[in-house]
């Protein structure tokens, strides 16, 4: 994650929504540790997502532990405490489905290493809305379960190395001012 986001400068024009799974044992805390940990390692502004805040450019919004993070069509964030999905709250599926609804073809979903199949259904929603899906190549992922599951219904060209993912993120910023 640091490797991926670390190459983006503070003036990066797109907002980024981030869901990270926590194991139940870790004890989730409030998420503030994670925010300062990441914030001190990358140039982008990192915030714990607050309900109904409007997205701003160059900011990473981290889903708070124990809440799902969703995007509304007006560009504001929503949190929810709906049931965990595949044991996860926050869940990637929930985030991706809302982003597919809200941003359609402007949505980009990225799946990195992970130990569950969360994200596969959401990635499918993004594809159906003509958005883009990019997946860390299972062979380079520490835990390949999540990238593999997401790739099942996708095209093999969606899988790429981290360096390549970063390059694509930089490309996106040049092409699409806005979402």
């Amino acid at each position, binding site marked *: 994650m640091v490797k991926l986001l670390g190459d983006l400068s503070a003036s990066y024009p797109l907002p980024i929504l981030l869901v990270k799974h926590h194991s139940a044992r870790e004890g989730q805390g*409030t998420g503030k540790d994670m925010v300062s940990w990441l914030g001190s390692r990358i140039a982008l502004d990192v915030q*714990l*997502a*607050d*309900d*109904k*805040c409007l997205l701003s450019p160059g900011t990473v919004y981290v889903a*708070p532990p124990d*809440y*799902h993070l*969703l*995007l*509304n*069509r007006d560009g*504001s964030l*929503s*949190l*929810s*405490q*709906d*049931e965990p*999905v595949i044991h996860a709250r926050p869940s990637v*599926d*929930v985030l991706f*489905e*809302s982003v*597919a*609804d*809200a941003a359609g073809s402007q949505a980009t979903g990225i799946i990195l290493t992970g130990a569950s199949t969360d994200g596969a*259904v959401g990635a*499918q*929603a993004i594809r*159906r809305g003509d958005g883009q899906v990019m997946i860390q190549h299972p062979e380079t992922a520490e835990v390949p379960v999540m990238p593999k599951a997401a790739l099942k219904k996708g095209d093999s060209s969606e899988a790429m190395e981290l360096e390549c993912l970063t390059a694509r993120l930089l490309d996106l910023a040049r092409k699409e001012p806005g979402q």
Partner: protein
Amino acid sequence: MTSPLPHQPQDTDQLLKTMADQYGYDFRDYAPASLNRRIRQHVEQHRFQNIGALNQAITDDTQAFANLLRSLSVPVTEMFRDPLFFHYLREQIIPWLATFPFIRIWHAGCATGEEAWSMAILLQQAGLLDRTQIYATDYNEEALATARSGIYSSGLLSLWERNYQDSGCTGKLADYCLQKYRSLRMSRELQKSIIFANHNLVTDSVFGEMHLILCRNVLIYFNRHLQDRVLKLFRESLHAGGRLCLGPRESMRFSSTAGDFDTLHDEWRVFRRKGGSQ
């Protein structure tokens, strides 16, 4: 499981209109992202063809509406949820409450009631319960029935016990409940001071002169407009100087009411209504 149905905004609008016009439940100012997700889930679980079919069903059948209503409510809660918040309540808010001869507290969106029972325990420990009236409200009748019964599954006790310890309370949570087989029942001593009632924050009005209002993890389901309205309702329901506690990721900064409150504790989102002595 939630394979995405294509998004159908007009059908959703029509569904919400039927709910409002025919049944008086208005969800049109809920946050669309989370609301859409629950509607879709309901459509799938009840095997409707699409949202249009669901709309037809609730138009014709009250039971279909009741099922939908139940699906839209998310009554998730815990005893002493966010233990450090309860620690704060105990250390900072309870001593202030103690300065009043009679105390009135409102839990808005109480779900299955755990938060209200936890509050009653804190007040009991501070010797204030006899002069307190706790109102705990929700629009979900089923959740309220559980709340009123005070009966919960014993399986939850170990998590709750940990919360209880972490909030700095002495003794055990189990001292406040009667355990039977797989369930536990909250002590009748506590029950005397709590009234559980049906109240819909969208349509119902101001609720008495409160010293303290807790509305945690409810506003997240609303859009900014409805949040603003509900925050005004809270302002009108509070004594000058009264305290309002929101959920840890909820804020007032998008509301025109923000100016009527001071922030007492930023992390736990505790606010004080301006005016009056303190």
